[in-house]
């Protein structure tokens, strides 16, 4: 959690990808890199509540889905400005986290896992019910979001740099947040709730706050995802997507924000890379996850911390 070498190293890698002399494959490398960064943004935000806060949310794809549908809703209304899109995405995700968090935080352990899943399923079915946005078929995006008329999310380098900026900002916000009294309280509550309470920490307020922040960041990933694929569909919020985000965080090592980025990279690269090689890629990816769970204590970031 304290080192800067791993995150800086990854930043160098991400910054170098567009500069690599790959010729025709350069576009594909950037596409892949951008995809990793979009999911990494969502994974970092999940790690804030799951890793640092010990709140195992099985519904983190829901704010992502809300962000994506904010893009769809405004596109339908003929609005493609980044400011209104972001305002709507953040508002939806914030309200969602406040409402569902207040109920979910009444439960513990497995029940928390399942109630967050239940709320995400509601969002999933709700988004599929809006005929204006294509119902369950999804909504093809008309115009990509623009910032003050600039095509910041259009194919190639602009999208890549925007995704990088969002990831770096999200990472820094989460990291800075964990260094504040608020962040310390969140971690203290995970380590020993009774002691934290005795010190005067209000568990509900701190945890709810963290859930709202995580949800806001995930909605940004949703806005990016909608623009990247030019298509918005309820499938972004299926429970398998929430599980995938959890896998990214766990593979990277829960509690390490840079681990979440690493985990997102490994998952996207394995899926894409193995998928090019064989359609039966889950036969390799699945056992990798099992072995990682059995053998890699603390995930990839834990391996990095124990190196040498």
């Amino acid at each position: 959690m304290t080192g800067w070498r791993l995150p800086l190293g990854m930043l160098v890698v991400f910054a170098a990808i567009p500069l690599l002399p790959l010729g025709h494959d350069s576009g594909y490398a950037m596409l892949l890199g951008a995809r990793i960064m979009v999911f990494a943004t969502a994974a970092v935000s999940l790690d804030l509540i799951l890793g640092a806060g010990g709140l195992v949310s099985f519904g983190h794809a829901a704010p992502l889905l809300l962000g994506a549908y904010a893009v769809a809703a405004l596109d339908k209304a003929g609005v493609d400005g980044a400011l209104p899109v972001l305002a709507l995405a953040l508002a939806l995700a914030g309200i969602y986290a406040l409402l569902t968090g207040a109920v979910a935080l009444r439960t513990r352990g497995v029940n928390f896992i399942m109630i967050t899943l239940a709320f995400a399923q509601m969002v999933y079915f709700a988004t599929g019910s809006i005929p204006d946005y294509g119902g369950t078929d999804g909504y093809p995006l008309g115009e990509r979001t623009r910032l003050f008329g600039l095509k910041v999310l259009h194919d190639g380098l602009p999208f890549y740099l925007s995704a990088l900026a969002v990831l770096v900002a999200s990472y820094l916000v989460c990291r800075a947040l964990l260094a504040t009294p608020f962040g310390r309280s969140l971690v203290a509550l995970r380590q020993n709730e009774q002691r934290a309470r005795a010190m005067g920490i209000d568990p509900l307020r701190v945890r709810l706050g963290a859930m709202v922040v995580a949800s806001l960041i995930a909605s940004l990933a949703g806005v990016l995802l909608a623009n990247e694929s030019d298509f918005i569909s309820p499938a972004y919020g299926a429970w398998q997507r929430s599980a995938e985000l959890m896998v990214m965080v766990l593979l990277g090592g829960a509690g390490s924000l840079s681990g979440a980025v690493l985990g997102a990279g490994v998952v996207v690269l394995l899926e894409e890379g193995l998928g090019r090689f064989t359609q039966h890629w889950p036969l390799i990816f699945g056992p990798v996850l099992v072995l990682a769970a059995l053998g890699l204590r603390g995930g990839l970031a834990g391996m990095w911390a124990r190196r040498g």
Partner: protein
Amino acid sequence: MTLLLVQALNGVQLGLTLFLIAAGLTLVFGVMDFINLAHGVQYMVGAYLAVSFYDASGSFLLALIGASLATGALGLLLEALVFRRLMGRGHLDQVLATFGLILTIGELVRLIWGTSPLQLPVPRLLSGAVPLMSGMGYPVYRIMLIVVGLAVAGGMALVIGRTKIGMQLRAGASNAAMVNALGVDIHRMFRLVFGVGAMLAGFAGVLAAPLVSVEAGMSDNLLILAFVVIVVGGVGSVRGAFIAAILVGLVDTLGRSLVTAAALALLPPMAAGHVGPALASMLIYLFMAAVLAVRPAGLFGVPA
């Protein structure tokens, strides 16, 4: 009225299928504090094996017995290879590993049986319909499912409530460490629960196979519903799982028709066609959120 009766019967039948899946899950959860996302896979494997056994033998009964035993064996194999090593580790490692198993086994199934959906015919003996009032019939096969489901539930109630192993299970669900300290081999108990749980899920898969198409994604949504059932019922409580399963089944089928009817009555037909089904799909989750909001440990759960 008849329609409502049919829906209620369908609800009970869905509930009993869910109970067969959830029973093993809630015990593994309650006794061993183990999250097994891969439990739903047993249901799918049971259905696929039944298709193969049926093709080989031509007998539904042989397929039912063979596929159930084989899924039980698969459960024991997974326990020995993976689950045993995850005992006492955090929930997160368990989630990661069992999600990996879902991917692996799902793909293996696709590799062995192909990607196109398969069918298992309803056994001829049970293929008729029982007349209900006003000339509508209800399939004999579904009635048989309800009877079998109730019989299994009754049998489990007897074992859990009246036998020594049942007593140990109940004790294990409320305090596993204490039961272990008192000299019960908790790992042997886990293997037993796991094998029987896997077998019941496979059994449910075989029974459901003639009503649905047998395909690779068939257990995905049922797994989530089974989790809803055990959380609503209270983790570790088989009685809770039974009641919650029936409730969830009824909410899903009866609620579905009521909500669709209400949407048609209140909204313009175009909107109702979209809103009705979506709201109906959300009902179970609304129900679960409402139960947990009022009783955070579930209906029959012990508050932590």
